[in-house]
């Protein structure tokens, strides 16, 4: 019975699901599936199979799966920018790349102040076309999900890239291990720690501002619920990934509010 596919922990969730709808397995055969990104125009979902160093593609119309890119540079998070281009975090290349409309893969960011990034983990493009990403060191701590290497930057930060100018700046430098990143429709920027890892810390940060108020950063979000973010709905709720049977809440995870500064 499909009802068994859901557990209602918060009554607000009830309207989000139809209990007759089952969780479907669409593909099996990854070592570690990560970083899904949907391209509506192509009715396709691409995602990373990190240790297998490949990106896969699910064709929504036919239900088939194929290899999109191999080797892929041990990719992790993917997203589609406002122009419809695939933007990708690469552990192997220690960079954020973009696949252009002509198929060429270009580097968007691989260094900050002259030092190589650790291993970009997850990325999102904001409404002003700036590219926000997290940079923990998981991808250089072993050969399992990248290439073993020494970090050059003495920290794991959240960055904001302006692709128009190439300006790359660290917007949050007090994370231990920033991981997933997402914007809500109100342009609140959230980053999460790695579920199941030490320092279970969830943070929520605002990125400043509506387009009409760029100069004045908005106050940091004050939501009492903190969940590792992943994907947002049009109505503003965030669907997130939690470890264990219950989502992290203020009582089970240390909540921190931070503000990602924006210009």
């Amino acid at each position, binding site marked *: 019975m499909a009802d068994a596919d859901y557990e209602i922990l918060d009554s607000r969730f009830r309207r*989000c*699901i139809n209990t007759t709808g089952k*969780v*479907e*397995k669409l593909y099996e055969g990854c070592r570690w*599936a990560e970083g899904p990104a*949907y391209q509506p125009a192509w009715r396709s979902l691409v995602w990373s199979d990190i240790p297998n160093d490949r990106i896969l593609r699910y064709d*929504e119309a036919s239900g088939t799966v194929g290899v999109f890119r191999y080797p892929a540079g041990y990719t992790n998070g993917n997203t589609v920018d406002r122009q419809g281009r695939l933007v990708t975090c690469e552990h192997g290349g220690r960079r954020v790349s973009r696949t252009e409309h002509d198929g060429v893969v270009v580097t968007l960011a691989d260094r900050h102040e002259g030092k190589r990034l650790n291993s970009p983990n997850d990325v999102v493009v904001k409404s002003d076309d700036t590219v926000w990403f997290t940079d923990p060191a998981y991808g250089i701590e072993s050969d399992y999900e990248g290439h073993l290497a020494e970090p050059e930057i003495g920290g794991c930060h959240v960055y904001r890239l302006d692709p128009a100018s190439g300006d790359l700046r660290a917007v949050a430098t007090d994370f231990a291990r920033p991981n997933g990143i997402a914007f809500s429709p109100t342009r609140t920027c959230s980053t999460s720690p790695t579920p199941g890892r030490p320092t279970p810390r969830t943070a929520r940060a605002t990125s400043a501002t509506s387009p009409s108020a760029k100069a004045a950063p908005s106050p940091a979000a004050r939501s009492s619920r903190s969940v590792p973010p992943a994907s947002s709905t049009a109505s503003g709720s965030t669907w*997130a990934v939690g470890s264990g049977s219950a989502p992290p809440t203020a009582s089970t995870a240390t909540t921190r509010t931070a503000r990602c500064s924006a210009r």
Partner: protein
Amino acid sequence: VKVPEVVANVEFGGGPKRNYLYICGTTSLYGVKVMVNGAKRL
């Protein structure tokens, strides 16, 4: 949403309505049609 494997991340898809939730769960890709719509462009 209960998934048989450890989940890494999720994404809304399913055409213009964006009412299908894709779930990356370790060895597998899962999905479920939902009653809400994902944000299209932020």
